[in-house]
């Protein structure tokens, strides 16, 4: 080999190593400045946790905080042997729910997908911060790309979702200990997507819903519900629509009527749990941690137990507790679940 070739080869190796170092540093910087959602606002960490699962679920919940705060997969397993997961995120908009559903169906085919209909009220993107809490946690796929395109506000740029460093780079001055602590990996926040709360703030007043100029859901929102129905039909998955029994914000009768009509037209099951609070046994003086917006663990267990019986009967879901491998997985999960319950209750006692 000539001297020139050797020099060229050395230069090429040096350039490649240099490039790799630059890319590694940029990747590390990006990871450092991106939000970890490990502080007071943990909800942004929920979406990404799904990818670590075995993905053999009977039921997948999709929707906003009304699913990840009100339904407890551990209860569905313990009481009915139903293996479930919640793909929920804060203010998850209906097009985000659709793309999460589409993505989920790339991994598995559950028997039932449960969608909470509150987000039908939004016909257009709302807040970038909420977009980020749903989208940043998704793995790259065509579903994620289309989810970004459907969710972006005018002020947002697609490239900033591809390279979040472009968006978050000036967090340099605001980095917190958690950014370093969780640089290489976050703690688990959810229990199969359920975000546990054990506080109690009773309901003593709920503001009346304001008069709206138009109670009709928007065309865009409807179009994504249509797409959900079609996607579930294609994949032979039963779509169940629910409205969680959160007392605030207002779920208007006019909205409920539209969903009921839609469900009837499309042969879907729809349960508005606000109409079954007595049957469920909910006591809003003890079963909510924020005065009626969301249930605490005790209320969520009651609601989930009620829904589990309904799912087992109406959707004919089988009890899988005798599946040894799955039971072993749940044994570990239940241990985590009850450990956190005890820890949170102990913290509450201290307060």
């Amino acid at each position, binding site marked *: 080999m000539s001297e020139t070739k050797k020099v060229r080869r050395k230069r*090429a190796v040096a*350039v490649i190593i240099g*490039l790799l170092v*630059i*890319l590694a540093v*940029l990747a590390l*910087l990006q990871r450092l400045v991106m*939000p970890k959602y490990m502080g*007071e*606002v943990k*909800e*942004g960490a929920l979406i990404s946790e799904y990818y670590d699962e075995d993905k053999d679920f009977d039921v997948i919940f999709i929707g*906003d*905080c009304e699913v990840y705060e009100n339904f407890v997969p551990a209860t569905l397993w313990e009481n009915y042997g139903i293996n479930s997961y919640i793909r929920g995120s*804060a*203010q998850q908009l209906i097009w985000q729910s659709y793309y999460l559903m589409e993505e989920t169906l790339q991994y598995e085919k559950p028997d039932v997908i449960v969608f909470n209909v509150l987000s039908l009220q939004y016909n257009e993107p709302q*807040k*970038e*911060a*909420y977009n*980020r*809490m749903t989208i940043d946690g998704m793995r790259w796929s065509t579903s994620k790309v289309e989810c970004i395109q459907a969710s972006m506000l005018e*002020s947002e740029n697609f490239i900033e979702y591809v*390279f979040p*460093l*472009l*968006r*978050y*780079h*000036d*967090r340099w001055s*605001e980095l917190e200990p958690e950014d370093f602590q969780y640089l290489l990996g976050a703690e688990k926040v959810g229990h199969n997507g359920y975000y546990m709360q054990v506080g109690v703030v009773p309901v003593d*007043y*709920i*503001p009346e819903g*304001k*008069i*709206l*100029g*138009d109670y009709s859901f928007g065309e865009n929102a409807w179009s994504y519900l249509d797409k959900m129905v079609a996607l579930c039909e294609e994949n032979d998955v039963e779509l169940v629509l629910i409205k969680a029994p959160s007392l*605030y914000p207002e779920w208007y009768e006019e909205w409920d009527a539209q969903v009921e009509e839609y469900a009837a037209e499309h042969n879907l099951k729809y349960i508005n749990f606000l109409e079954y609070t007595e049957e469920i046994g909910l006591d809003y003086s003890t079963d909510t941690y*924020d*005065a009626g*917006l969301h249930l605490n663990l005790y209320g969520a267990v009651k609601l989930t137990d009620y829904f589990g019986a309904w799912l087992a009967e109406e959707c004919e879901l089988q009890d899988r507790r005798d599946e040894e491998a799955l039971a072993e997985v749940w044994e570990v999960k239940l241990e985590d679940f009850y450990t956190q319950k005890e820890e949170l209750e102990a913290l509450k006692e201290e307060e």
Partner: protein
Amino acid sequence: MKKVILTVCLVLAMATLTACAETSQEVADTVVDMNDKVSDAETLLGDYKETMGNVDLMGENAMEGNATAPVQTNNTSVDDFVFEYKGIRISPDMNTNEFLADLGEPLHYYEVKSCAFEGMDKIYTYTSFEISTYPNGANDLVSSIYFKDDTVTTEEGAYLGMAKADVLALYGSNYTESAGAYVYSKGGMELHFIFDGETLASIEYVTTVLDE
């Protein structure tokens, strides 16, 4: 080829270092600190300074409170929509510290924790109106003022039950229609009217800060 790869990396690095700090700061505030009102505070501070400038220009009488509307009290300005109740003037984005004590005890108080953000949205319900707020650092600013009965009026004289024609005569035709509401905009805030047929069914003052 090496040059191309190197150029791409350099461009990426440059873009990272030089990307718009202002917009990025907004997201950093909203997503990371979950205090997305920081930039709003800057806006409000700007509005406040502008307001104080307006007050200065209005002269000594205005400063002493001798003048009548449109001279404003507190930090409202002539460019704001103002709701006045028993001499207390309230506008969207006003700090509740400026008027809450004067209004007395509300009939009801409700706190709404956002799905994700730190701080509380608060709702103060009085007999005839309801004031909602949003957190801004240690302060709470007015997000909306919503009329509950016909015993209160807007500064211009609109009240629940008023004929649509009379409302339009008061406010003119410079409105936009949004989700069934007639929306008048002024000074970074909006006044929403919803009609039930030919009768005014809903009046609400709304901040636009939260839309940004």
